[in-house]
């Protein structure tokens, strides 16, 4: 996401990412990040929690006004207090996970994000 944000900002739009993995988003060159400690798939909040979602979106937009130089990260104050066990993973193992089980020697490539050049 950081890469796409990078391109949109460079084209003359003011951008912010609302990210549950802010370290990763920031490392890819995001100019502004609003960090939020919410589970994957529920960045804005729980399904049906309109008030919570509105508060998060409003806070992300306010962070946009607060950040005055590139690489700014604002940590939003929302706490995820529920201890309920959530199924956060996908219904089926993603293709790359299945691939790495069959091709364990490709793991260093995956960890360093240097995919083989063929394909697409």
């Amino acid at each position, binding site marked *: 996401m950081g890469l796409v944000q990078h391109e*949109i900002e460079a084209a003359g739009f003011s951008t912010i990412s*609302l990210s549950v993995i802010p370290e990763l988003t920031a490392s890819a060159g995001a100019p502004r990040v609003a960090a939020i400690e919410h589970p994957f798939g529920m960045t804005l909040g*729980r*399904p049906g929690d309109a008030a919570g979602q509105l508060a998060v979106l409003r806070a992300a937009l306010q962070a946009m006004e607060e950040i005055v130089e590139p690489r700014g990260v604002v940590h939003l104050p929302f706490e995820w207090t529920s201890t309920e066990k959530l199924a956060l993973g996908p219904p089926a193992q*993603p293709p790359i996970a299945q691939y790495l089980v069959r091709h364990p020697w490709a793991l260093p490539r995956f960890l360093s*994000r240097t995919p083989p050049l063929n394909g697409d």
Partner: protein
Amino acid sequence: MVAKSVDSYRFLHGIEKKVLKRWANLPQETNIPWTPLAKPLSMCTVSLVSSAALALRIDEPFNPEIERRDPWFADPSYRVLPRTVRTGDVQVCHLHINPAFAEQDLNSVLPVERLNELAERGEIGAAAPSHYSYMGYTLRPERLLRESVPGILRQLRQENVDVVVLVPV
């Protein structure tokens, strides 16, 4: 009062946690573009971008076979979602998240209705007519950047957008 410090890895475990930590510590992009906010938010037109691979049900879905054939890559196309879009109109095609939450309430990942509310309250100038989504996981982003991002930029300009809020998944 101690300020909140977000733990990027709280909801991750095992190998996934290790991988994302490793990625976050790879050499960082140092050349960061900057477009200052030119006017108050109450005068800005705002658009949303989601990497959850959201497609209108009446539109062509993202193709998961591309990633199944080549797990280092993903469908590099993008979809446009109008600001009138609602939960039942959208299919979640991302292969790395549980799509159940967004399928119950689109606003959990793409807060279209919340953005419309902020516009009605006058906290932002307007919600842009269009929002955008692409398939976020790919280790080869070149085609996404070359083939899809220019189309998104063109439409952002046509719709006089000032601010873009991106929601990665």
